């Protein structure tokens, strides 16, 4: 059969919860349009119940993921990079569909791959850099180590389809956290495809969950859920920032606002971004005087 006669196989963009690709439980969708105002995809308009289900999955997965050895977590991050590398053309095409030039798109995907490898390398090193033996004036051996904070909710930057999301997720999970991320509202397609990459990369179910939907509707849910231990987000919009801070205070959630970072540049990767979602645990161990 000639290729021209082939029926097009349009992809259904779903959300990613607990290692599965369900549709939103709300049954709501929003059309994503290109610059010519043509619909390029129907995207799930995730609901607070989708978020709740995702948090349940993330909580369930967290202890096991934190117990995995640093070496294994590093290998799995490296595996994500490998899988993404193999699909570069798909991601480039998808970013172009959403209005990027080919050059921009290719650069963004390549940086995303490199960023995953960067954090894969940090997996078994950040602990040594940030841990310390502390001088104390008593008969104690006093040391501080990092522990993952738990479940992190992530609002990915709206102005990038892939690199922003990857730059938020990678430092959170490399440190043993699990996360629920909300994809860019205006460029959501690559996030769903990235979920497929995660799915093929031995990332245990529930470690990363990705929703698509409206930021105005979901940000406060991401901030208020009592079973979420930290929220990482761009911190844009003064009114919303106040609301996020107030709601997060309900269970003393860590609020990590990252405004005005150029995720395409080197400032978009740093071990300090890993530390953002770590808790410092200090132990006083008695020794003979």
């Amino acid at each position, binding site marked *: 059969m000639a290729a021209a006669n082939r029926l097009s196989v349009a992809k259904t963009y779903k959300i990613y919860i607990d290692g599965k690709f369900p549709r939103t439980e709300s049954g709501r969708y929003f059309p994503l349009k290109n610059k010519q105002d043509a619909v390029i995809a129907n995207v799930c308009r995730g609901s607070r119940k989708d978020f709740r289900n995702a948090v349940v999955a993330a909580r369930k997965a967290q202890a096991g993921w934190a117990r995995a050895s640093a070496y294994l977590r590093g290998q799995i991050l490296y595996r994500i990079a490998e899988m993404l590398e193999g699909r570069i053309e798909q991601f480039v095409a998808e970013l172009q569909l959403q209005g990027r030039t080919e050059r921009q798109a290719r650069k963004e995907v390549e940086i995303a791959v490199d960023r995953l490898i960067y954090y894969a390398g940090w997996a078994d090193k950040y602990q040594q850099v940030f841990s310390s033996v502390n001088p104390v004036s008593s008969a104690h051996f006093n040391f501080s180590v990092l522990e993952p904070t738990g479940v992190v909710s992530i609002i990915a930057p709206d102005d990038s389809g892939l690199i922003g999301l990857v730059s938020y997720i990678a430092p959170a999970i490399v440190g043993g956290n699990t996360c629920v991320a909300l994809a860019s509202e205006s460029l959501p397609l690559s996030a769903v495809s990235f979920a497929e990459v995660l799915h093929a990369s031995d990332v245990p179910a529930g470690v990363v969950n990705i929703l698509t939907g409206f930021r105005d509707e979901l940000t406060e849910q991401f901030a208020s859920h*009592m*079973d979420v231990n930290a929220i990482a987000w761009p911190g844009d919009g003064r009114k919303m920032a106040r609301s996020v801070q107030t709601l997060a205070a309900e269970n003393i959630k860590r609020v990590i606002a990252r405004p005005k970072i150029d995720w395409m540049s080197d400032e978009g990767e740093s071990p300090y971004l890993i530390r953002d979602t770590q808790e410092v645990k200090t132990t006083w161990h008695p020794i003979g005087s």
Partner: protein
Amino acid sequence: MSVAAVKKARRLPDLSCVPAVDEVGVNERVARFQTRSIKKSAKVEALKLILSMIDLTTLEGQDTAGKVRQLCQKAIHLHDAYPGLPHVAAVCVYPNMVSVAKEALAGHDIRIASVATAFPSGMSSRKVKLEDTRTAVAAGADEIDMVISRGEFLAGNYRYVFDEIVAVKEACGDAHLKVILETGELGTLDRVRRASVLAMHAGADFIKTSTGKVQPAATMQVTLVMLQAIRDYYRDTGRMVGMKPAGGISTSKLAIHYLVMLHETLGNAWMTPEWFRFGASSLANDVLMQLMKQSTGLYQSADYFSKD
């Protein structure tokens, strides 16, 4: 009732006359129950009713007196941050823990249920099973959860199973008797229905799905079949029998589906802890988290609820 009337009532029925179960019909009916929308204030009422129907259970070989006391504390103080909560119906423990529970629950209107009759397998002699039952009752159990001899039942030895239930019922004295069918080992819904009829005729005050030690434990399908058996038995004899699904019911959503099923099969008369129980442990905290969600608007975390 006179002694003769009691004996007449406790006659082994002809189980070949028990109606066959239409499995496809049961599945469709169960699917229907799950489409009911219970929201807002109706949901809050349902959640509180569920709490009041819970038999808070710990049945582990590793149970200690401390663990049982902790469970009893949980039964008394479900979640003090939420005023006006009902307490659970009962705590359910092994016979040797009944006295511990009795002491911990002194002064509270929470019943003590104890499993007996060589729980969970029931593989022992009649003599041992009766002694097990008497031990639990003597220690202060208000309710006895017995297991039927599934091996004998599956071998078609209905008389044996029937007589055993009658004997245990006698050994219970004033204590209520719940008869566990262990539906996961019965295999078909037809057998579940037959075992339900047999147990009710033998004098069961409650029929109960499972021990919680065998998978699958309670399912909505077997529970529906048992509820229908209770309904038909009530129509025939005028005696109400209670129902207790146990094992595997750990979310509020599922528990609400069970309530819907109870309501639409047996009606309002059974919608009390006197006639319906949930055998569960983790269900209580899930219900509490849902209640707090309803009152605060925030999704809750298990970190802020006491463990049982």
